[in-house]
């Protein structure tokens, strides 16, 4: 079992063309900072996403910080006969439960509370496991990453519901819905975690194991 990195090859992120890392381009010796491009699709080539861990940490921390206003500030206010009732994400779910719309409550709970928490925890866990060069179940960790990357965008459903309610319920003083700052914070959390998942490189999970086993065979 050889990886592309060990074989001195680079796989293109987009078209998966395998390229051999040249020793020099036009007489200039290749170092770490030289930009090289895929011969097939001209995307810039890298063996691992550059600064993957730092960038993922930064985006993840920003998302964690914004997660606080996203849950404490109201996401929307329903104004009925002049009386406003601000709702946070959690109180919105509670209201749906109280009104007996439990399938809907469950859906919003999954999309707006369960998935974001799962995503933040999974990404934090993956980053920490790479920092400690863990050998623990690399395949399961890769699958966890794939699920996080796939499922994250569905959290946007609550934002879209708010947008639709704002657009539809506009009956002057009788009934109207206005969006609040919590909605923007929540949308920012979803978008930041999506970027964080994109900049995370799952190959780093396997690198620790390979480098350690290479060291052992040297001994």
């Amino acid at each position, binding site marked *: 079992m050889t990886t592309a990195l060990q074989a001195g090859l680079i796989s293109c992120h987009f*078209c998966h063309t395998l390229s051999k890392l040249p020793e020099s381009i036009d007489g200039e010796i290749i170092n770490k900072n030289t930009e090289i491009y895929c011969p*097939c699709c001209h995307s810039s080539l890298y063996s691992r996403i550059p600064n993957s861990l730092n960038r993922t940490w930064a985006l993840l921390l920003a998302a964690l910080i914004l997660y606080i206003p996203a849950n404490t500030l109201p996401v929307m206010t329903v104004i009925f006969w002049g009386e406003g009732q601000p709702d946070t994400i959690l109180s919105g779910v509670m209201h749906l439960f109280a009104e007996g719309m439990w399938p809907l409550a469950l*859906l919003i709970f999954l999309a707006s509370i369960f998935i974001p928490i799962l995503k933040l925890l999974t990404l934090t866990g993956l980053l920490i496991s790479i920092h400690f060069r863990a050998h623990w179940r690399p395949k399961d960790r890769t699958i966890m990453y794939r699920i996080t990357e796939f499922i994250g965008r569905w959290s946007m459903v609550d*934002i879209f519901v708010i947008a639709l*309610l704002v*657009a539809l319920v506009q009956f002057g003083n009788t009934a109207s819905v206005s969006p609040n700052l919590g909605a923007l914070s929540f949308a920012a959390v979803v978008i930041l975690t999506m970027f964080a998942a994109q900049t995370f490189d799952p190959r780093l999970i396997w690198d620790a194991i390979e480098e350690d086993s290479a060291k052992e065979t040297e001994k």
Partner: protein
Amino acid sequence: MASNHSNNTSPHAQVSHIACPDCDLILSVPPLAVNEVAYCIRCDATLLRNQKNSIDRTLAFAITGLILFVISNLFPLLSLKAMGLTQESSLLSTALALFEADRPLLSLIILLTTFIFPAITLLGTIYILIQVKTNRINRYTALLFRFLRRTDAWGMLEIFMLAILVALVKLGDVADVIYGVSLYAFCLLILSLSLLSYSLNPQDVWNSLRNKQGCSL
């Protein structure tokens, strides 16, 4: 090395080498028969697929999708009738309503995810696939296709569809919700978009680029 679902492989074509995108393992993949999928032996990532008429089918779904996209934008998706007043909403007016409610950033997010990125996906896919079919690939094809692959996750119409269903149930008891041609067109649009992303095999587009430039390894 990669696992196969059937064993109808033709013996003439060459074995191709690919590095797993998720764990970097180099694998040799035997030629795949139609509807065969190759998975990584170490991490189960999907490596390659072989789909029948991938380019033609995807082009058909993309053109259907574009027509449906235009129809869903011509008429209001949902209307709400209460107290003698009717409120209409469409894809663009949803974004506009947030802008008017003093949330320009939120409005921009909605505009990008429900209008601009889906429109770019449909138009871009049609443009690229026609180029591939007529063999008129130029240096910007790869650039555009890379952009489309990268922004694939940001078109969120299927999530918007779910939001419409939630809003329908929520408002159902309070007011009369009217839906028309546009909502039906929108449902079909979601169907053609998901069939589009299912039938599109990016490797086919890359292969034709590779053949054109003669850069296969």
